[in-house]
């Protein structure tokens, strides 16, 4: 038994495939590609496939990871092309390799966001956004499974930068927590809605760029 990992892009139309549907889709993709994934034992066998981190519906990513088990060693170099050929539109497998690092080591994510302001003034918004996220604390009200609570999202934002692309669009580049106190990037917008409504974009879309782990000094390394 060998555990392999694929890295894939999920974008465009595929951004709207939910996590549950993605699992079903991946299962079928492997069957179409003729790659026999190991199944769990038991009454209702299911394929052994595990995703690193679920992605919100509508968000894109160029660094999704999924593990699967095969009975025998395989030539991983052909798999990206072979799997991509039978994917729905918008999913591209970029790499395949034996899985070594553990998903729980993933501690930070780099995300890119596009904030759209229908009223324009992106340059001013960009500067104001920077000041807002420079505040020492950003306490927002959030609903979790355990109920509603106030919490400071600032420790979950390691880096954040804004840039006006044109009069209506500000691009956001941020490194946000994925391990302890994970942050859904949508909460960056919730923070604006709650604390600086004038800065809330009319539309925001996010894309995951990279997954990171940290060493003992806290330095970032790309998770493989």
């Amino acid at each position: 038994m060998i555990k392999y990992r694929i890295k894939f892009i999920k974008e465009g139309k595929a951004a709207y495939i939910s996590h549950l549907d993605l699992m079903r889709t991946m299962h079928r993709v492997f069957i179409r590609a003729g790659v026999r994934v190991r199944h769990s034992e038991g009454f209702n066998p299911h394929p052994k496939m595990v995703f690193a981190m679920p992605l919100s519906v509508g968000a894109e990513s160029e660094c999704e990871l999924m593990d699967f088990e095969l009975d025998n060693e395989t030539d991983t170099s052909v798999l990206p092309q072979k799997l991509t050929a039978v994917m729905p539109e918008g999913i591209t497998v970029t790499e395949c390799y034996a899985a070594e690092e553990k998903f729980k080591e993933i501690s930070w994510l780099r995300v890119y966001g596009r904030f759209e302001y229908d009223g324009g003034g992106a340059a001013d918004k960009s500067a104001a956004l920077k000041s807002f996220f420079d505040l020492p604390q950003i306490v927002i009200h959030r609903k979790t499974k355990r109920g509603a609570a106030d919490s400071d999202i600032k420790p979950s934002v390691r880096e954040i930068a804004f840039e006006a692309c044109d009069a209506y669009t500000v691009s956001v580049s941020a490194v946000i927590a994925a391990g302890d106190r994970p942050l859904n990037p949508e909460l960056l917008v919730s923070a604006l809605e709650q604390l600086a409504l004038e800065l809330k974009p009319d539309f925001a879309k996010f894309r995951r760029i990279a997954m990171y782990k940290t060493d003992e000094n806290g330095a970032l390394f790309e998770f493989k």
Partner: protein
Amino acid sequence: MDRRLERILPRVQKPARYTGGEYNQIIKNKSDIDVRIAFCFPDTYEIGMSNLGMRILYGVFNDMPGVWCERAFAPWGDMADEMRRAGIPLYALESGDPIGYFDMIAFSIGYEMAFTSVLDMLDMAGVPLRSDEREGLSPLVCAGGTACYNIEPIAEFIDLCFIGEGEELDVEVVELYRKAKREGWTKTEFLRQACRIQGVYVPRFYDIEYNGDGTVKSITAREGAPDKVLKRVVEDFSGAYFPEHPIVPSTEIVHDRVSLELFRGCIRGCRFCQAGFIYRPVRPRGADRLIEQGISSLKNTGYEEVTLSSLSTSDYRPLSGLCDGLLEWCEPNNVSLSLPSLRADNFSIDLMHKVQRVRKSGLTFAPEAGTQRLRDAINKNVREEDLLNSCRIAFEGGWSGLKLYFMLGLPTETDEDVRGIADMALNVLRTWKAYASNKNRGARITVSTSFFVPKAHTPFQWEAQIPIDEYRRRVRILKESITAKAITYNWHEPETSYIEAVLSRGDRRLSKVIETVWRRGGRLDAWSDYFSFERWMDAFSECGIDPDFYAARERGRDEIFPWSMIASGVSDSFMWREREMAYTGELSPDCRAKCTGCGANRLLKGGRCDD
């Protein structure tokens, strides 16, 4: 992707329904295309994508060079509202282009409750609703599917109907359209030529006159249209197109599996069943071909389930060999085989063991009526001892759950017949007690009743539907008669079936009712989330139309039906004979035991069915 759409999609439920991009969808280069078809299904994506007919015709159209067929479905309410608010017209999933600019807008209409959605989709596309308001050749609004056997209630909105099977007919119409477009014909010129193709019905070429009592006085064909439009069938069904590369939806749909069609038509002749008559004659597909198609589709899709589809699967002669052939591939590949709609009379041990070898699915039988007398009247040739015998086999084999389907309100039904349903269910439970191999899990027997809707092109087309209150009374009788805890009773609410009864035998005067219902927000009427009985009843009274005239009236033998210009190939005299036999409780043999001379064999060269 459209920027406006990108903003809406994160806000709606199950947005993957609205994006396209699924595996095996067909994308063509627009510069190579001279006919663009929007295949529209007037229900949700999950229902429409589960429809085998749609998958077949999608493949048939796209196999034509120069033709690009794309899909559109009725958006759920949240999406429809968002699209209207943002001014996004109904678009095709493949290209994202608005369908209002396509050459043909072709609806597949399987049931009457979809009529309001047809109007809604036309409106969302920005297309004028009525045929006479659309002057140009494009978009040509067409309809096919079983509802077209009586399309009269929406005839004023449709330019052209496909009657019968589309594999060959639709191609001929598209080729004629291509010629018309190239040569610059007017819409009328095109329709005049099109109605000469067998199976094409052009509603505007038929003038309907009514008697003082509201019945049809006469139907007059004009412009060279045939007096009777005879349905089309695919003569060589075994060799007919089958989609071996079907689209694999990226989100869950209702029937998310490979579906193999064993045969068209049915040998049985149950007198209430429209499908049993309009799909005649029986034409099987060879088992070897089905096995090949099944394996190929499974490989091409990655599906883990294959199902056998037909009107009566256990009547497929080589069923056992077919199952063996499929299982030989399915078992080592973790694919399960399921068999829907088994008849209770010839359910065999052999077959049961086959379906359970990979995964055990639920068992459903449809005796339809509770007493032998009534089953004889409807020509459902199932005997209680056969049903109980099948149940015994199933219970011995480890099944503990069973669903039994019945109808209430069948012609000649008495209270004794209604109580017979409870007796039958109790006998099934007793059989479980006597024979179940595994009693630990307890028996789960479910009885469901629906409200009988008399349909056009059946021997019961002359019948009155029983009143809603009477249906409710019979439900109460049955409910009181079922006392065992292990038997669950579910019944359908009757309002939708009443409206269905009005529409299924309706005429053109109902078009204003349907339009009124739609204008007041009616759409997706097959869904209880959206159906409003009040809205329908208000529309009837506003339009001055008595719905009971259509639902609750027994027709005389010589009455001209609104759908009399449509011929299924089964003769009127046969239908009437079958109706009379229902009242005398006489059975008709199935087509294999003895030909009953329905006339459908004349649709085949050589006149032989079921070869």
